[in-house]
């Protein structure tokens, strides 16, 4: 009865409500039926055959363990962070698990199923450990360890990709290259963006000028243009030292994406800096705290807190922008998704299936990012 009343009140309250409900239901029915019939009537062997290609590109089979090791480390770190820092609610956990199952279902093959199960088991153990240590005496130490682990995660990933005679960077590809490029762009672009934002707000004219010009120049041209410039022009400008002038195309993409990201992040953070009341700085100065410490301990933490939602949308945008590296002939997920139906005879013309999975994968990661940002917002009470 309560349910019926609730439905009546919320969906059939007024004539307008009735009209909107009917239109809405018809629309949802139309969309869902199209999607479901597409899913049911399509031949998904394309994905089953090519999933390793989509995940890792042209990386040779015997190097795949590197990818799985990286995935396990990240997964373990993520679960322990979530259970340690956030309140766990059942609804949220189920949501995350379902979301993360999608890539696992797509990418897990017979050879790797044991590996995946092992990762899941270890992750659950760490989830539990994180939960337990939340209220123990070790809290401060665990918190430090987790933070340091996040900082060194990226270098460690690089190490894992390169030690023991790793594959050439140009062989990196698939969804992995999108994730790596995004991670690099975010980890390098964020601190650089903070510096640029501070530079632009600085009272030193020269620093201000340089930061402003940098930001406006970078933002003034599309990413595609910068990528092409990096391809054709960069080698001519770099000195021919240490093989700088012929650094490989993946590293160039990393540099361009990081620089591009930093300009956008800088503008977002500048907005945050401007929203901090002048009184905060004054109170800090009045206590005798110098301007550098005031920025680090008073202004910046508050500014970043305010702009977390916008920063995360920038991160998501950058992550999706990594698909543009196809113009540098890097075989990222999108490029593979387009090549499969063009080059494999068995799947000629099956672009829709292929691209649908590409879109789904990008969507899952973006959604997880935005959910994490929402959780952080809630925790920080913004």
């Amino acid at each position, binding site marked *: 009865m309560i349910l019926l009343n609730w439905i009546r009140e919320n969906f059939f309250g007024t004539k307008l409500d009735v009209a909107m409900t009917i239109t809405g239901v018809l629309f949802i029915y139309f969309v869902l039926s199209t999607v479901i019939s597409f899913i049911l009537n399509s031949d998904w062997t394309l994905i089953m055959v090519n999933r390793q290609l989509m995940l890792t590109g042209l990386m040779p089979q015997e190097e795949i363990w590197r990818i799985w090791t990286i995935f396990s480390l990240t997964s373990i770190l993520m679960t322990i962070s979530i259970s340690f820092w956030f309140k766990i609610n059942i609804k949220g956990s189920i949501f995350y698990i379902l979301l993360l199952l999608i890539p696992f279902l797509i990418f897990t093959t017979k050879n790797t199923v044991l590996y995946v199960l092992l990762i899941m088991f270890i992750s659950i153990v760490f989830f539990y450990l994180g939960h337990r240590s939340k209220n123990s005496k070790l809290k401060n130490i665990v918190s430090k360890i987790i933070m340091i682990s996040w900082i060194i995660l990226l270098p460690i990933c690089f190490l894992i990709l390169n030690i023991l005679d790793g594959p050439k960077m140009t062989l990196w590809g698939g969804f992995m290259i999108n994730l790596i490029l995004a991670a690099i762009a975010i980890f390098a672009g964020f601190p650089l963006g903070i510096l640029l934002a501070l530079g632009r707000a600085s009272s030193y004219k020269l620093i201000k000028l340089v930061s402003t010009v940098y930001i406006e120049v970078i933002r003034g041209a599309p990413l595609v243009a910068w990528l092409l410039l990096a391809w054709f022009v960069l080698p001519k400008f770099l000195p021919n030292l240490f093989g700088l002038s012929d650094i490989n195309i993946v590293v160039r993409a990393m540099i361009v994406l990081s620089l591009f990201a930093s300009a956008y992040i800088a503008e977002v953070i500048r907005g945050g800096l401007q929203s901090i*009341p002048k*009184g*905060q700085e*004054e*109170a*800090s*100065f*009045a*206590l*005798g*705290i*110098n301007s550098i*410490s005031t920025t680090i*301990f*008073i202004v910046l*933490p*508050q500014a970043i*807190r305010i702009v977390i939602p916008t920063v995360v949308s920038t991160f998501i945008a950058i992550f999706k922008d990594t698909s543009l590296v196809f113009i540098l002939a890097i075989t990222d997920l999108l490029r593979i998704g387009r090549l499969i139906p063009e080059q494999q005879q068995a799947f000629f013309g099956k672009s829709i299936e292929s691209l649908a999975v590409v879109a789904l994968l990008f969507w899952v990661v973006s959604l997880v990012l935005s959910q994490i940002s929402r959780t952080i917002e809630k925790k920080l009470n913004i």
Partner: protein
Amino acid sequence: MKKKVSKKKISVEAKGITKSFGDFQALKGITANIYEGEVVVVLGPSGSGKSTFIRTINGLEEHNSGEITVNGIPLNDDVKNRDVIRGQVGMVFQQFNLFPHLSVLRNITLAPQKVKKLSKSESEELAMSLLERVGIPEQAEKYPAQLSGGQQQRVAIARALAMQPKIMLFDEPTSALDPEMIKEVLDVMIELAQSGMTMICVTHEMGFAREVADRFLFFDEGLIVEEGTPDHFFNNPQEERTKLFLSQIL
């Protein structure tokens, strides 16, 4: 209860200070001496320059001309001097200006740790004793937003005291408070005044002023129009402007 003020040792010496904001001249030549242990209440209508004056004392506003000397240190272009002065001069603001992202305890310990290089445990001990002094030790772990206005302002006072200042500046400390919270803040200020702290207060709380002030400075249009003891002010003001002002707020 009045204490002795030594008329010999000057804490703050201001000579002919001027300050303009664009075309508006906020201070038109302020000369005043504040002695050690003295409680000076600065009065005046809004826009008279009283806040600007006390903000020049710790360099939050840079004065255009004139000389300010605090505890014998000249406040000039030398950033080192300015930082030393700021360490010796505490300030309490109308809007509290607590750091919202830090706990009450951390609000108080930050400056002693960063400026005086106290250890974590030393500074926390100091902070707790100050919270004890302002009467809210149980709020140490909370965040500013969880406290009432009166409690926030008391934390702000404790935060300023943590630098063990020789002079305290109060810029309308009770103006942003609900009426029922004013007393708890004034009580802390009265206790502070009786302990012998040198204080310069911009305030309209005449009850407080009557109880603890040693001297009044009356500002109007960027100048000190009249100064004197509370007795002089309440019973025998000379200037028309002062009389008018007092008749409006008393």
